């Protein structure tokens, strides 16, 4: 199976690889995994005082499509509010990267990582 050019670009030059301190109150952390292939993805969002996502970082152990999906998502979420970020759909990711049907679950993983990160942020701030 051939990867699309966009997948290869994100795979070879992943954007925003790394992480933030998950205990920092301005950081939202989403951890998700795909049992079918054993891929693991961590997405972290840094939320500014104005409620906008200032920065995003990811770490993904998985196939090229999973890495590309998470890399793309870190670019897309920047400048968005958390409520806007959760509207990103796996179908948008799959379309942008031209993922074949067998790799759709990689884009689902990235979508769920955003949701998990937003949930984490909300639970952190509801306690305070």
């Amino acid at each position: 199976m051939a990867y699309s050019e966009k997948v290869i670009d994100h795979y070879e030059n992943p954007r925003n690889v790394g992480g933030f301190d998950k205990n920092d109150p301005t950081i939202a952390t989403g951890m998700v995994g795909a049992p079918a292939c054993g891929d693991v993805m961590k997405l972290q969002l840094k939320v500014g005082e104005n409620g906008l996502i200032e920065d995003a970082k990811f770490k993904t152990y998985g196939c090229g499509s999973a890495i590309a999906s998470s890399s793309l998502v870190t670019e897309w979420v920047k400048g968005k509010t958390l409520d806007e970020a959760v509207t990103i759909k796996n179908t948008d990711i799959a379309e942008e990267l031209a993922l074949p049907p067998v790799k759709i679950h990689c884009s689902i993983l990235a979508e769920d990582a955003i949701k998990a990160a937003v949930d984490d942020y909300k639970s952190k701030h509801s306690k305070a």
Partner: protein
Amino acid sequence: MNFFTLFGLPETYHIDNAKLANVYQSLAKVTHPDKFSNAGGQEKLMAVQKNAQINDGYQILKNPLSRAEHMLELRGISLQHETQTMQEPAFLMQQMEWREQLSEVESAGDPEQILQALDEEVAIHTKQHFKTLQELLEQQNDEANNLAAAEVRKLKFLNKLHKEIELKEDVLFED
């Protein structure tokens, strides 16, 4: 398709491996495509299909994880094509840490020792999950089956990690 029935084995997690191998050999022999070289098209096709089924079944029953997955499928829980993600932070964080260790092993002081320790740790966790899985499968009720499915999902992550550790060992210590 119930592969336990195909191989004449009881539908249990623990199986008689010697019997499985024996039945496999005899079934594979009678359906071997060479035996049907002079047969008609339809008969030949049937034999090829049966032979493929026997090979699939053997591979699935031989491996404890795919055997458990097959048992769950027979009980109405199909894990094979699920796209649902897993979101257990503690478990995933541990997976992440192990994968980080693995990816940084080349730059460590004693890669061989680190890999070995990592492999042992993963093996201990794998063994524990298999033990829980087996106990849950024996209960044969919906709640236990769902919990067993969760164990299978975890074991898939551990299985992949184990394979990656082996791959890394091959790359680093190839003679």
